[in-house]
């Protein structure tokens, strides 16, 4: 097995994560799941598109077209690898940082970005049709929703699975524990997908929790796995296995995907206040897109023409989304009252009249 030529980010100490590709793109592990060349190219394409859009969103925020925006650069393999493994009917319960997952699920980015445009909370896309839940800010609360969603899927006798996304910081919250415990006790068809990106705003993962997150699964009575979150093939394989296990009725799996948040927590955050540039530069050397691209070319699954096409498409994609975003209108004021209740009381209706004049 070849030694990785680049050291992974510092918070990756302890148990070596499961890995197929080393940071230099060399093969160091069994891919376990065979993907066809066109599927592999589709994964790279999504990663390139997602990164380009992420950067465009930051630019849009700087230009005053979006409110605060939380970037995900560096986490493309964790998000695209896991999202690609999902079945169409599986249900995603995201945080506020899963735009790349949303793209793979077919959520219209223009609709998604209404959230960051400040024109609607939660997400104006249809969470049932897209199987992508509302954007969720209160940390770890969506994991409990995912447990309930999975309970419903189990009661319906479906073979659908729920997947909850969350970060390393979320594992310090009570809701993570409560949801994981319910999932274990009820053997729910649930995948708990932790993107350990090293930082919860300014709190480093080492100060967030003393143990390794993936090991907590044992305490809840189901398996945990630590995977190289910057290795899209390893992420894909681990997620597929967890999904299949859940579909068989064998219960939940906790995946800890080791990755790194290259950018700020959000456009309102200045990471230079709490972390040094050399750490970020070291993490850049473990870039998930470069790694996968190198391997794709070396393995003969893609060529330079394809890479160039991806870049052109990503540019066009970003510009199309930008045009859509800047054209998003402010919602009509009466929407403030429109969906608060399905059946509002008379007092509420009177206030609505008062507010609308």
């Amino acid at each position: 097995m070849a030694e990785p030529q680049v050291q992974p980010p510092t918070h990756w100490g302890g148990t070596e994560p499961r890995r197929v590709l080393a940071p230099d793109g060399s093969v160091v592990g069994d891919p376990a799941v065979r993907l066809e060349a066109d599927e592999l190219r589709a994964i790279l394409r999504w990663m390139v598109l997602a990164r380009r859009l992420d950067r465009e969103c930051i630019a849009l925020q700087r230009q005053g077209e979006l409110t605060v925006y939380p970037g995900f650069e560096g986490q493309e393999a964790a998000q695209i690898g896991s999202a690609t493994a999902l079945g169409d009917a599986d249900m995603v319960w995201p945080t506020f940082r899963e735009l790349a997952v949303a793209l793979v699920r077919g959520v219209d980015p223009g609709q998604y970005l209404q959230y960051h445009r400040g024109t609607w909370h939660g997400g104006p896309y249809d969470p049932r049709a897209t199987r992508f839940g509302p954007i969720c800010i209160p940390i770890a609360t969506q994991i409990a929703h995912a447990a309930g969603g999975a309970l419903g899927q189990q009661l319906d006798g479906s073979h659908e699975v729920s997947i909850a996304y969350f970060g390393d910081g979320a594992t310090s919250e009570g809701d993570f524990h409560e949801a994981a415990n319910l999932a274990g006790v009820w053997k729910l068809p649930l995948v708990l997908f932790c993107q350990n990106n090293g930082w919860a705003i300014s709190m480093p993962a080492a100060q967030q929790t003393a143990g390794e997150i993936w090991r907590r699964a044992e305490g809840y009575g189901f398996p945990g796995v630590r995977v190289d979150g910057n290795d899209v093939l390893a992420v894909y394989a681990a997620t597929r296995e967890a999904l299949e296990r859940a579909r068989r009725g064998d219960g939940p799996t906790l995946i800890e995907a080791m990755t790194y948040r290259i950018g700020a927590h959000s456009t309102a955050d200045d990471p230079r206040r709490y972390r040094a540039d050399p750490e970020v530069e070291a993490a850049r050397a473990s870039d998930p897109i470069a790694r996968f691209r190198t391997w794709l070319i070396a393995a003969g699954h893609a060529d330079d023409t394809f890479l160039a096409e991806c870049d052109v498409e990503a540019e066009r994609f970003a510009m199309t989304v930008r045009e859509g975003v800047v054209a998003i209108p402010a919602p009509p004021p009466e929407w403030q009252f429109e969906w608060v209740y399905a059946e509002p009381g008379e007092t509420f209706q009177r206030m609505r009249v008062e507010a609308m004049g």
Partner: protein
Amino acid sequence: MTSWTMSAALNQALRDALTADDRVILLGEDIGVSGGVFRVTDSLLETFGDRRVFDTPISEAGIVGAAVGLCFGGWRPVVELQFDAFSYPAFEQIVDHVAKMRMRTRGRVDIPITIRIPAFGGIKGKEHHGESPETYFAHTAGLKVVTPSGALDAYALLRHAIEDPDPVIVLEPKARYWSKEEGELGPDELALGTGRVVRDGGDVTLIAYGGMVARIREAAEQLAHTGIEARAVDLRWLSPLDDDLLRRCAVETGRLVVVHEAPRHVGFGAEVAARTMELAFDSLAAPIARVTGWDTPYPPASLEDRYLPSVDRIVAAAKETVAY
């Protein structure tokens, strides 16, 4: 005529709801084998099985959060939070998601969750077992809050809550679980957000909800012996609140006394008083009086009687209001 305790009437409401709609499921601590600490869910597990009635781990945030997720699959969860103060661990889920999810999804996902909470004091309970959490919930847009005062209303209002497409917090006055009421159980004949005059009178209106309704009725009887005819009002719904009833009482009696167990400061009585003033200031002949718990934590059992609004305190406040 059948005699019902509130506990038995609530049990029947759950039984009928589970029978009427196979998407109704129950989640709560000790609600299955044990039948709930107040026996409200007695024998429902036996009848409906463990795929409808879930004995959950001690996990208030987890089960309320799970209920939100269940709604996305078209389920209609009824959650029991064992005691008032044990609703607080679920507060984040209730306020951030139960209350707002319908708006957040632009009405694509209804949240027809019912959260039953044995609430208020009067049972010589331990600390954290006598809280009045109604204003936390009534203050939160997106929630409806209801509290029955007797067995027949308990049945009707719980059935309404479960069938309502919006989330409803049902505060069950635990001091009234074993009180009996004669009559037949049936659907609520009053509309959403409607209170009820439970004793008529023209000199002063006593307003209460939950466990204090029995007390204002008793106070009204005592006042009658002194020549004061008091009207007693059971608000039933705290959200939405019955504006029309408040206005009518102000117009017809000119004097109001509002009674609740919760502390006075920013208590529900403040909303009743402010709203009545907005609606019918010119009809008021006296300041609206508040008879409430004190602005202290709920006391230990041996001091409970000095904390809860007593009939004497209500009578005294009513007399003062009438004499103003």
